[in-house]
């Protein structure tokens, strides 16, 4: 049996306000999401907000290690209504430059533990000026024992993911 299965691949033919995958089967061991995206936010800064199973309650936490200059910072939050601190860039980025994110959700279908998320994000830009680029590695928690059957990414800005943004969701199977 193949270790990796493509659950969904979406390349936006037009701007879209979210990326949403529903009815995710529980037959895999882990989920991996690869995203190449940017938004139309007027500011260079934006974030992906991740919600799971449509839960909009205050059941999420996240912790982030990040840099936008020579100094490396960290922050965290709890009791949030989404997993935050998953970075993506907006309109001021260099033309045609999209941001990369790889996100893992291990053991996503288990019904005994809360769900952990880890992500590596890069807001690349043709600039070395402070605060025109950003790197982050982020951990997230969804405070629920339910098996995950839906994931939704939404730009924090309330704007749209622009055309050509891609989202590839893989199911990863153990032996």
């Amino acid at each position, binding site marked *: 049996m193949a270790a990796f299965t*493509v659950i969904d691949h979406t390349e936006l033919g037009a701007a879209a306000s979210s990326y949403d995958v529903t009815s995710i089967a529980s037959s895999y061991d882990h989920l991996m999401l690869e995203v190449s995206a940017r938004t139309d936010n007027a500011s260079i800064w934006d974030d992906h907000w991740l919600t799971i199973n449509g839960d909009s309650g205050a059941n999420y936490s996240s912790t982030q290690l990040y840099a936008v200059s020579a100094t490396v910072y960290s922050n965290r939050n709890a009791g949030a209504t989404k997993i935050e601190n998953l970075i993506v860039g907006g309109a001021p980025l*260099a033309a045609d*430059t999209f941001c990369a994110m790889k996100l893992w959700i291990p053991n996503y279908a288990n019904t005994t533990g809360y769900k952990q998320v880890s992500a*590596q994000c890069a807001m690349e830009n043709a600039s*070395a*000026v402070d605060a025109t680029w950003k790197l982050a590695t982020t951990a997230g928690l969804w405070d629920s024992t339910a098996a995950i059957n839906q994931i939704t990414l939404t730009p924090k800005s309330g704007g749209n993911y622009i055309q050509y943004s891609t989202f*590839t969701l893989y199911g990863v199977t153990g032996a």
Partner: protein
Amino acid sequence: MAVIEAIATQYLEADAATVTFSGIPATYEHLQLRASLRSTELVNAMRLKINLNGDTGTNYSNHNVRGSTTSATAYGQTGAAYIQTSDGMHGSSLPAGEYASFIMDILDYANTNKNTTCSLMAGSALLHTDRRVQFGSGLWDNTAAITTILFTPNAGSFSRGCEFTLYGLNSA
């Protein structure tokens, strides 16, 4: 069709100044490169340089976060002639047999509507007193599909025993 396919592996039976993957087909969605790296240069660690499609112009940027002591640092570079890691390779002053680990993801490498961006992750010398870890990203300011990737150590040559494997990830 497997979702992840090994496109090519290069295991160095002798020291080599560069390693090149060429003729990369445009049939995958993403690429991933996994490597085990060491240089002949007499240093602890060094940068790895990456050129795409033979372009040696100043069309690259990169940003990195690096930890080697109790604090972390970061930096950015633009207008460079290559993407580079912050460390990511061992030098020959480390004990024999210590090779650094390196992973690079290139998303949508064949999408001609996008510049090429990549994510980088490297770790060095976990048994040695000089330990370093870094993650970062690189940008090639060009929308061409990637067909060639060239790796060059910042100094010296790749040591015998280095290994590079390029994978293609399908999306259907």
